[in-house]
């Protein structure tokens, strides 16, 4: 049975890369209106934000970000990375974060998916990373552990991260979407499953939720592509963050789930244009994946902060020499931990 969670334990964090959030907020209103929202405006966005009435929210802009972190920092909260500022200043246990070009999806029965409720269910039922259950999440209604699942592993571990999926525009890289410009994801896979321990995956930042108390500092805005842009397929910041989170969760004995909920992702951007502009991101995974696959953290690292420091040092040592982008990421990770320790745990509210 999921732990009953009160609405005030949840923050919804939205990174605003578009100034007019009216359609977005109105579409999510039935699902979001119960909760406190943190909206972080991309510091590069010039126009004023347009947000409809009727929400309990705090909005953070460039001025607030500069005030909190100072203007000289290796961490750049621009573009999609602006949402991490929201994670930093939140004081809630659970965070649900969705890109501002996503709307609620429909399930296979035609009902609107309450993405927040599903993420919270994922986070408040155990994960089972040590042995694969062929009927997927055994804690889902109507499912259970199958014959052959060791009994000692059936209580599971805390789920720290819930990775949702996307209908319509799937999270493909530019080459893939460019090759199949008409392809849209319409398949509703009615499952959530735990990603096994030591199995790595590309964790997309488009539709995620996490236990901030357990892994907050491990979601980090530290890797910036040289040509990073304002479309997801021009970024790798979330993929980088996700590799760190998964390795850290595996080390700390926490779980990561993937699957439902779905969100509907609007058509946006031109994959071919993005492809011409940015391909570094695609290449970097060739080095990044083997690095993370072989990474082992020392036993003494028992908190998410400690783990981030260990990962940063390893990145600096092993990936730094390959590309200055990694060396910069490592430094940003260390700065992030310092920032988290000073700001992430004290109280702050947006300036006048």
């Amino acid at each position, binding site marked *: 049975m999921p732990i009953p969670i009160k609405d005030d334990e949840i923050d919804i964090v939205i990174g605003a890369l578009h100034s007019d959030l009216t359609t977005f907020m109105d579409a999510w209103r039935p699902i979001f209106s119960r909760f406190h929202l943190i909206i972080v405006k991309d510091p590069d966005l010039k126009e004023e934000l347009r947000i409809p009435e009727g929400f309990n929210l705090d909005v953070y802009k460039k001025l607030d970000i500069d005030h909190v972190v100072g203007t000289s920092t290796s961490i750049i909260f621009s573009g999609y990375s602006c949402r991490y500022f929201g994670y930093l200043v939140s004081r809630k246990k659970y965070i649900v974060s969705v890109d501002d070009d996503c709307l609620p999806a429909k399930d*296979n029965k035609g009902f609107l998916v309450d993405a927040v409720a599903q993420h919270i269910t994922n986070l408040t039922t155990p994960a089972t990373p040590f*042995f*694969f*259950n*062929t*009927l*997927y999440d055994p804690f*889902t209604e*109507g*499912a*259970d*552990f*199958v*014959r*052959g*699942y*060791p*009994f*000692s*592993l059936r209580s599971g571990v805390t789920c720290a991260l819930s*990775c949702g*999926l996307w209908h319509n525009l*799937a*999270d*493909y*890289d530019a080459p*893939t979407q460019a090759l*199949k410009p008409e*392809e849209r*994801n*319409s*398949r*509703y*896979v*009615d*499952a959530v499953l735990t*990603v*096994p*321990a*030591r*199995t*790595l*995956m*590309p*964790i*997309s930042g488009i539709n995620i939720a996490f236990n901030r108390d357990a892994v907050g500092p491990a979601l980090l805005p530290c890797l910036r592509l040289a040509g990073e842009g304002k479309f*997801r*397929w021009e970024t*790798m910041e979330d*993929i980088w963050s*996700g590799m760190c989170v998964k390795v850290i969760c595996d080390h700390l004995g926490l779980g990561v789930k*993937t699957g439902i909920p779905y969100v509907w992702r609007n058509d946006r951007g031109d994959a071919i244009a993005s492809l011409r502009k940015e391909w570094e991101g*695609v290449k970097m*995974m*060739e080095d*990044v*994946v083997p690095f993370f696959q072989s990474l082992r953290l020392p036993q003494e690292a028992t908190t998410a902060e400690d783990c981030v420091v260990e990962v940063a040092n390893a990145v600096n040592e092993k990936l730094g020499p390959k590309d200055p982008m990694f060396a910069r990421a490592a430094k940003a990770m260390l700065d992030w931990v310092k920032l988290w320790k000073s700001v992430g745990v004290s109280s702050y509210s947006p300036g006048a």
Partner: protein
Amino acid sequence: MVEPATASLAAAPAMPQLKDELDIVIPTIRNLDFLEMWRPFFQPYHLIIVQDGDPSKTIKVPPGFDYELYNRNDINKILGPKASCISFKDSACRCFGYMVSKKKYIFTIDDDCFVAKDPSGKAVNALEQHIKNMLSPSTPFFFNTLYDPFREGADFVRGYPFSLREGVPTAVSHGLWLNIPDYDAPTQLVKPLERNTRFVDAVLTIPKGTLFPMCGMNLAFDRDLIGPAMYFGLMGDGQPIGRYDDMWAGWCIKVICDHLGLGVKTGLPYIYHSKASNPFVNLRKEYKGIFWQEEIIPFFQQVLLPKDCTTVQKCYIELAKQVKEKLSKVDPYFDKLADAMVTWIKAWDELNPPRGGSSMPNGKAA
């Protein structure tokens, strides 16, 4: 409420794929009435029926199927003393069918499994889906969040390294079950009315380094790639354990597939599982296994196969050696099982000499 498809709903595919390269292996002790429902999908293929239990009983095969049938007498005749490795009074005996097959692919199904319906009401051609699964690569080295990237309408997601997008050959396709789920006895006792009604429209590769509980009810595999490791162990009559046959094979094949760089997929297709076996009978069979698996799982999780194990047989013999070394202390059964694993490989190699050597005709050996 899930229901099986009716025989009339099932539509035979225009071009049955791999019809001369795939055998359907069915263990049975009761009857083969269920084949009527599968006829449109199965009729083009050759069946290998392994008759368990009393060999003097005649099992009637519905007309129109091309098949070979083996009872216990046949097994004893063909294998001689090596027949000791084939279980009696347990569906584990089906692995005899794998051994005598001359085909590249095997699909095995239980005789209480019927055609399922997908959410649109269409009959699921389980065999066709298994073939699709096996003929497309697996991706065990990195998890794809949109599941099988080779399926229609899916692909690799952003962040998936391009060097890993070719995938590896798929050795095993593990299907699932609607209606009666494959629960163990304690779970069946606690939830006798639970039915699996969720149709999860996905196939995915089980990542390298991850073990899973393999079920033999709805299973397909590439005999050339992994056949010798599909031994279903010593179960049933005269054995202290039952209902661990497919799981034992599953742990063995997964470790070997991981070592050899082969893939294992799970998910679609669904079949409709109609019979719930008696949970009290199951409890007796599984009882020891429930304790033993606490030791068996760590054993398989830590198994290391040396680099020079480059064939399935070599891997399996090495595995048998380690079972004897490390699990005999759990129970003398494992000592016997390790010996049976070696016997199985010897029998497999005798019945399946390397190509170019003397070949055996299809059907019963002389």
